[in-house]
């Protein structure tokens, strides 16, 4: 596959078709989306939310080779410096970190950076192996101007794609409101028990699935035709459209549960029969992130019209204490799960149409605290992975000697710039529909 030369956000992601790539990656857009343009472009000119939500009629988008975007959230604020260590600044880093000794990093070929050793776990050398094979693009220094160090405020900004409290919909939910179907809840899928706020939509149906083989509504004690009639009665009871938010949400959730049950019925586990979703790759045991990604991979291989999906990584990256041990365990588990997921997609022959974006709500402070950990900071880390991802270090690495006035890392790329690239370059739609001020 041709690769486009480095260092502009619009090149972060390749798109499936040559034609659309020519169309999208023009010189003009490279400049417009260029990372050098900085973080402040979003400070002004945001569109009012209402304008964004005036969605045109949604079009059904279930083409079998349509690109899929998977968002994986690592909760707590993952440390950039320990995950992707700047080896040229190692002396300064060790001074700042004191007792929180960074793990001995794995040198990343062709860069001056070292990857946390736990990220070599998993098939094919884990995330490091994926990087070596040109399938990972790291985004160090990602955040936004004047970062908010509250987990919940910052996470909400990333989920909604707006640095404000004004949006009720998530950025991928907004994309579905614009480009999704009106009747397929599986188009926006949270693999897990609850729905990710990233997928919250105003009108597009979306779903959460924790176990694809067990997503049916069935009454255990009412069987056969009686049971079918009872489930039909349940569906009928959910066909109301009350005004108040609570009753409307309950009726809608029942309708969605019923639709998901119907659509996944052919994939039901049959006793003693083969699992129709089973794949060729073995996932690690006792790894919740891996369990969720396995469910997702199985569903992505089916013609269900999934376009955007979310997975919450297991573990806590809020390493106020015991950072070394926590990262070794939790980052290792997440990395292993992600590498296995990628191998599974590859083996199922669908890797080319899936791009995975991994993110956390902020980074951590260069100076350690005395609990063997680090406090909330700015300038975190995210990455894109998949055969179509631009591989390499896609953003400027923040300096350890030129910190901001709060002694945090200086942010080098705004996450909304990356979202815009994902929407424009990967999903092939105009980012401004979803990200205010993106134009």
């Amino acid at each position, binding site marked *: 596959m041709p690769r486009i030369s480095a260092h502009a956000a619009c090149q972060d992601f390749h798109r499936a078709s040559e034609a659309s790539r020519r169309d999208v990656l023009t010189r003009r857009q490279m400049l417009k989306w260029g990372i050098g343009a900085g973080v402040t472009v979003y400070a002004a000119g945001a569109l009012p939310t209402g304008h964004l939500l005036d969605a045109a009629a949604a079009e059904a988008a279930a083409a079998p080779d349509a690109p899929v975007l998977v968002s994986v959230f690592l909760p707590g604020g993952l440390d950039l410096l320990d995950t992707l260590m700047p080896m040229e600044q190692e002396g300064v880093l060790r001074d700042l970190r004191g007792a929180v000794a960074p793990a001995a990093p794995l040198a990343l070929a062709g860069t001056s950076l070292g990857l946390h050793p736990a990220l070599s776990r998993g098939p094919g050398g884990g995330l490091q192996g994926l990087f070596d094979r040109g399938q990972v693009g790291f985004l160090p220094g990602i955040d936004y101007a004047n970062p908010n160090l509250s987990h919940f405020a910052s996470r909400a900004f990333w989920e909604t794609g707006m640095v404000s409290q004004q949006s009720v919909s998530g950025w991928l939910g907004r994309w579905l409101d614009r480009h999704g179907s009106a009747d397929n809840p599986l188009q926006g899928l949270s693999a897990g*028990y609850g729905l990710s706020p990233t997928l919250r939509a105003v009108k597009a149906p979306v779903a959460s699935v924790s176990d694809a083989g067990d997503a049916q*509504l069935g009454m255990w004690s009412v069987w056969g035709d009686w049971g079918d009639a009872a489930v039909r009665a349940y569906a009928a009871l959910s066909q109301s459209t009350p005004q108040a938010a609570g*009753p409307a949400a309950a009726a809608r*959730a029942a309708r969605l549960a019923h639709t998901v049950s119907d659509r996944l019925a052919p994939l039901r586990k049959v006793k003693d029969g083969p699992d129709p979703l089973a794949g060729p790759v073995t996932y690690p045991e006792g790894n919740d992130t891996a369990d969720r990604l396995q469910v997702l991979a199985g569903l992505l291989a089916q013609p269900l019209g999934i376009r955007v999906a979310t997975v919450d990584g297991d573990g806590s990256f809020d390493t106020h204490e015991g950072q070394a041990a926590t990262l070794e365990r939790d980052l290792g588990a997440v990395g292993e799960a992600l590498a296995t997921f990628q191998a599974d997609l590859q083996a199922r022959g669908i890797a080319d149409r899936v791009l995975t974006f991994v993110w956390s709500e902020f980074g951590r402070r260069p100076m350690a605290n005395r609990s063997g950990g680090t406090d909330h900071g700015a300038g975190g880390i995210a990455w894109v992975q998949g055969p179509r991802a631009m591989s390499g270090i896609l953003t400027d690495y923040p300096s350890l000697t030129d910190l901001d006035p709060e002694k945090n890392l200086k942010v080098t790329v705004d996450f909304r710039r990356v979202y815009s690239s994902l929407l424009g370059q990967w999903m092939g739609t105009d980012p401004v529909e979803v990200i205010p001020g993106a134009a």
Partner: protein
Amino acid sequence: MTRIGGWSQAHVRRVVWRAGFGATPHEAAKWAHRGRAATLRWLLTPNGHPAPLSGPKPMALDPVNEYGHDMLWWMDRMVRTTRPLEEKMVLLWHDHFATRDVDTPLMLRQNALLRRRALGSFPALLRAVMEDPALGTFLNLIGSYKDEPNENFARELMELFTLGEGNGYTEADVREAARALTGIVRGREAGGVLLTTRFDPKNHDSGVKRIFGHRGRFGPHDVLRLCVEHHAHAEFLVRKLWSFFVDEPLDRTTRLRLQRIYVRSGHRLKPVVGAILDHPALYAHLGGPTMVKAPAVAIAGMLRGTRLGVRTDDWVWVTGEMGQRLFSPPSVAGWEWGTAWMSSNGMRMRFVAANVALSQPGLKVEDGDTPVDLEPEQQLARALKAIGQPWLSPRARKGLLSLAKGYDAMAGQKWQRQVAADMTQRAMRHLLLSAPDAQLH
């Protein structure tokens, strides 16, 4: 106090759901008869002594050692408490001071502390929670030393416990408060369990700090005091309490009145909670409830209404997959309440919850249990009685009656009439527990 026009069983059912886990038919009749003032007095009585429990006994529980039994133990209290508001407040505080990832004995001790102080003084509650080892462990307050303080607790103290995100404080305030909060270290232990914390001046930063514009050599208790006395605190707490009980908007006049009640009472909780429970907004739309039940509330309410009690550990995974694993909130911000519970999968799990309930002796319909030749109305009355007379919309009532008629028609041959009767009863009971109406209170 504001007058509420009339007082009926519908009022009682509303307030006992919002301030508890639902009224049994007996409670609804009793408190409707005794009147508004007596009902609120009953709810607000908690006095710090453990409430007596009444109702169906639970299975054998070992909350410290058996997986999930901590949750079952608490759900049993929710099901059998004679002071529903007290138990509901414990749930509120568990969400407010959300703690996880610490040893079960610590979580249970914290839970007892939240119950003891459920409706007392907020500053006293805040102080007790800070000095208790559970949250101090979770948020790294224990072991935050001078020179390099850990900011975790200081930040959440302002953002989540007292003021609200970015509400009248700065990053500098967080850092200065973190300095003032240094010096809390591990205290007494017994059998490997940390029972207390203590203040160690050697590890405390005794220098001058500047917090919210005040200067002084502040220590941990000063920080709590400054937060509670901060101008943004009363509004923050009133909004939090209001939205826990009421889903109508909080108008400015009411808010200011509630803030006055809270501040003038010396930051006591009982008067302000009492005023909220007495407010007409809590009784809006009596004919059709509008708030989504949280998973733990839905399950505890179901086990209370059906009189099943906690008789299977299935409730651990069922409630967890509905989205609320007690003692393990998703983060220090607690759970997202309200319509956020209503995901497609969360709703499917509520359907599964009805399956589990209907397989329990006491609610299970065995073959031949149901008299044949009951009219649809009689079938419905029987099912409503079994479930504990839950609210049912006219639309759902019609749906259930028409299901019964459909089953009648399906039972073509005489031997099928018994099957149809039993199936009707099972399906009706299930839908009374699983359909959208059942998720609202």
